[in-house]
């Protein structure tokens, strides 16, 4: 009866969105490419006019060359795998613990009152401050790096999930009560989906933190990894190699974030980003 023109409206809105998207598409690719070339040009000028001593300012050409070398020797790939592994383990560990803890804290006022100061304290403690403990407790290898990533991401993640739960509109719980959702089902079918959009955002932020922390962590406690690669390059005064590692770190970080962004496009969470 009242579905008279609803379909048309929906269709026309979608068409309009598609049109705007098409118009912007070429710019989304072309503009960044222009910026990229400007940066290269500035870099080239810095080298050309010897603003910094030449041992401290590798040329674009030297970086490309060292890139080829690092790939050929297998070092780069090895370091990438090592870093990705540590980030993955630390990140998953903190998600697996941080999300349930956040859900729990969000639902129990007493628990929140008890733990909130501790969480806030730990959140402001730079993860790098844990380096001495990490090394003395876990020596060298993957463990100290994983520990540092966990320490850096667990607290902000738990806090984000907690405050998301605490701000779920009361109406959802009232509806849930009308339709007999209780206990575990209430958490999995109401609380969790209600905060899922914010959890995805929090996970992206956490991943960003881990990617930053891993580079610093590997400079002290590891024998491989992208951070270690930069440290090695510095020791050997091979700043061309350091720059090459920096580029890889940035690109990998961006790529994985792009991947995580896809999670915010699944239909069950779209609503959370469209208000």
């Amino acid at each position: 009866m009242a579905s008279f023109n609803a379909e048309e409206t929906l269709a026309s809105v979608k068409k309009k969105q598609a049109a705007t998207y098409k118009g912007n598409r070429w710019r989304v690719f072309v503009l960044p490419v222009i910026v990229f070339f400007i940066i290269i040009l500035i870099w080239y000028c810095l080298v050309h006019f010897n603003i910094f001593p030449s041992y401290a300012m590798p040329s674009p050409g030297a970086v490309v060359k060292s890139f080829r070398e690092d790939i050929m020797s297998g070092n780069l790939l090895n370091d990438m795998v090592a870093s990705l592994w540590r980030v993955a383990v630390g990140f998953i560990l903190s998600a697996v613990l941080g999300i349930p803890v956040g859900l729990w804290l969000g639902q129990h006022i007493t628990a929140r009152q008890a733990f909130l100061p501790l969480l806030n304290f730990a959140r402001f403690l730079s993860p790098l401050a844990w380096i001495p403990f990490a090394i003395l407790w876990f020596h060298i290898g993957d463990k100290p790096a994983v520990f540092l990533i966990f320490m850096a991401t667990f607290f902000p993640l738990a806090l984000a999930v907690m405050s998301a739960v605490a701000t779920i509109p009361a109406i959802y719980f009232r509806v849930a009560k009308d339709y007999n959702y209780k206990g575990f089902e209430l958490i999995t079918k109401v609380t969790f989906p209600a905060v899922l959009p914010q959890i995805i955002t929090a996970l992206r932020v956490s991943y960003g933190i881990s990617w930053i922390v891993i580079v610093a962590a590997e400079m002290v406690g590891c024998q491989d990894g992208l951070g270690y690669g930069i440290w090695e390059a510095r020791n050997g005064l091979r700043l061309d190699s350091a720059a090459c590692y920096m580029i890889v770190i940035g690109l990998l970080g961006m790529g994985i974030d792009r991947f995580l962004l896809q999670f915010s496009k699944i239909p069950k969470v779209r609503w959370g980003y469209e208000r």
Partner: protein
Amino acid sequence: MKDKKYAHRLLLQNVSLSYGAMPVLQHLNLTVHSGEFVVIVGPSGCGKTTILNLLSGHIKPGLGVISREGVVRTVYQQDGLFPWLTVSENISMGLRSLKDAVQREKELQSLFDLIHLEDFKNHYPHELSGGMRQRAELARALAGDSDILLMDEPFSALDYQTRLRMRYELVRLLEKRPRTVVFVTHDIEEAAQLADRVLVLSKRPTTILQELQISAPKPRDLTDNEVINAMKEILERLGILKENIV
């Protein structure tokens, strides 16, 4: 559908409630009979939502007794649907008590037939218009074993014409699936078109100023004589006629 043998009803006996030092309800008595459509009107802040919260059991009264027989469901002004579920999944929430999957599917289909939203089955609430969302919410509340509907200004967020249509829609749905309804509104037209009985509430501390029976058959048009007379009577009670104001 399930057979309603006993008289499902709601009962408030001598109910009083205060928020802090502020008395909201005082010695309120209310009986809602099975199948009855009761509309509550009254000034803003007089405690209409509070009465529905008491009836649903969401809050407890300071004094007095409340009894309800049957499954109670509330339809809200807006945003009562779960945004992470499709329309069809939302409506299925109302069928959770049905164990048999085939029967559940059949029920779901008949509800969709009832509200004419087939094409939007797999859409999410944020992709629907306000009117469509309210119809979906109505279907969810009518699904399965519900007996009593509490409706808190369910159409007040809609535009005027959609609101007019929704009144007929509601009457039609209730004809197919009779329920006991307590309906809160600011809209006097709505009250006159829908109610079997209108309760006009006073300002705080709230009592029932007047009860008005409207026995004309439904659906009623806005311009029917009974509707116009009822509106006049309600307006008179609320003191919003020209002789009181001008």
